[in-house]
């Protein structure tokens, strides 16, 4: 039983960091451009398939394939921003609907290209670590650590650099930020592209653990939005904790309750948080 619970905790935490990295993108995009980018799930799918393509077909080593995948997703994000999202700044409903249109187009395209047959990556970094009688797959641990590093790195960059301070300034008062010399259009594009790159990274790492289907992003982005709201929109470290809380609840919950409840926890959290703590669990702690 202890082994089972520990395993589910670990699984939940890893899935949770994946939720967290997308949630971070959701939070950043919402804070700076005022829209909720549901299409981040599609960018995650794109990153996952790109990683699969670069390792399995192009034969690159996995870490380089991940970097290439992130590059490809960021480029796609730039194109999407300049062609579409640029026109929906601060218009929540339009942004929502454009991102939904993008999901329809890109998911269907992926289905045409890659078919619905799940794709499997060759085992990256096989083997396990024995730790106090518990068994930890090495790859899961690596994914967990990489995602943690990226999220804390983003936090550090946002609090320690000029660009980060500009982003915070913009989130609080766009006009004042512009008057202080922040290039706001460039900042918005940058944040959208960075969010898509984060989603691509999440997808590329996901590819090393699970099999790939074109619809993998849809579920993730809903969970990420739940995590972002749970943490409180705008909170960077919070999005990590929001994701981990959600992932762990799902993991541990599925031991005690039927698996069918898995997708309900996040929805219940979401409603409860918005009703009773609308600023989120980590309100005020940016």
């Amino acid at each position, binding site marked *: 039983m202890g082994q089972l619970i520990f395993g589910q905790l670990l699984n939940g935490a890893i899935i949770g960091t994946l939720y967290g990295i997308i949630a971070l993108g959701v939070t950043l995009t919402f804070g700076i451009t005022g829209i*909720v980018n549901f299409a981040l799930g599609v960018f995650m799918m794109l990153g996952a398939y790109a990683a699969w393509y670069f390792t399995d077909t192009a034969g690159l080593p996995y870490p380089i394939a991940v970097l290439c995948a992130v590059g490809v997703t960021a480029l796609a994000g730039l194109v999407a921003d300049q062609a*579409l999202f640029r*026109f*929906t700044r601060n218009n*929540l*409903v*339009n942004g*929502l*609907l*454009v991102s*939904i*249109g*993008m*999901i*329809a*187009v*890109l*998911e*269907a*395209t992926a*289905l*045409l290209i890659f078919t619905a047959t799940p794709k499997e990556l060759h085992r990256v970094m096989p083997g396990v670590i024995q730790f106090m009688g518990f068994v930890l797959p090495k790859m899961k641990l690596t994914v967990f650590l990489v995602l943690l590093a990226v999220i804390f790195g983003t936090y550090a960059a946002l609090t320690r650099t000029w660009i980060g301070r500009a982003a915070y300034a913009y989130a609080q008062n766009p006009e004042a930020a512009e008057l202080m010399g922040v290039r706001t259009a460039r900042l918005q594009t940058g944040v959208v592209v960075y969010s898509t790159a984060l989603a691509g990274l999440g997808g590329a790492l996901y590819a090393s653990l699970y099999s790939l289907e074109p619809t993998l992003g849809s579920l993730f982005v809903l969970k990420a*939005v739940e995590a972002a*709201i749970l943490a409180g929109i705008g909170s960077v470290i919070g999005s990590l904790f929001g994701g981990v809380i959600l992932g762990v609840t799902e993991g541990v919950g599925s031991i005690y309750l*039927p698996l*069918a409840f898995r*997708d*309900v926890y996040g*929805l*219940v959290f*979401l*409603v409860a948080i*918005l*009703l009773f703590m*609308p600023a989120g669990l980590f309100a005020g702690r940016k």
Partner: protein
Amino acid sequence: MRFQNRFLFFALAVALLALPLGVKSDVVLTILVFSWLQGMLAVSFNLIFGFTGQLTMFHAAAFGIAGYATHLSMQHLGVGYWTGTVLAALFVSVLSIIVGTICFRFRLKEFYFAIVTLAFSEMARLTVLNWNSVTNGTLGINLQEKPWLFGFKVNDTVSWYYLSLVALAVTLLVCSRLVHSWMGRCFSAIRLNDELGDTLGINVFRYKLAAFVAGNFIAAVTGSLYAYYLGSLEPGFLSIDQSLGIVAMVLLGGRSSVFAPVVGAVLLTALPHLIHFSAEVRSIVYGSILILTILVMPQGIYGSIAALLRKRHAS
């Protein structure tokens, strides 16, 4: 209504009523039945979204739950189809009052309202999906019964055509009366600025709830008709895609008039049948239409044409 408009209106009504006399193709009539039913959904959604300004994602749930509720009340209470539909619509209304009260009491707006109604809708879908003993889970339910109306069994496509057309006409009439009444003015006030409406003495909570319940009630009636026309029920009725499809119809048609969403509904329902696409290409076309409408034609087809005519009229 000016004379010209009234004439156009009657011409359209006569043409639609006489259509089955000329058109014998079952395919065309079937597409039109689906279009009218989808049109009802879009019009009722627009009551909440276009006129009151609340982006609800609960519509698929109201639509799907009603189908199941009609079937269950017919099976377990031994009532006929129409009583079952009324019971289902009342059940959905009670659910909408609960969901609406929660959302509006806590003053959820815009995205937060959309995401919480989406959450309730998903909970409903997961319940339907997993409550196997009642809903038969993913397999769904086959509906053999057909409704009776004035001693006729509504069985063939032509009678369904008339039933759905009348249902759509009643929906349009009710919505247009509602929108042009004092209540409709309260809806507009809430859409434009609900805080200002509040200070002017409009009970914002009550009218938001009224619009939400009225829209879901019509969606419930549609759901019951749709399920019995199709002859089957499945959890996919409650999926997010269903709600998004409705949003797309309303945007494509236009959200500023009662009638406009029907245009979008007819186009989006008929298009995939007129041109034979694979499911993937259809999805790509659908997504592109959604994106293009928002970026190029934010008023929708009806709104754009109306604006064009106004400009011509003025010059």
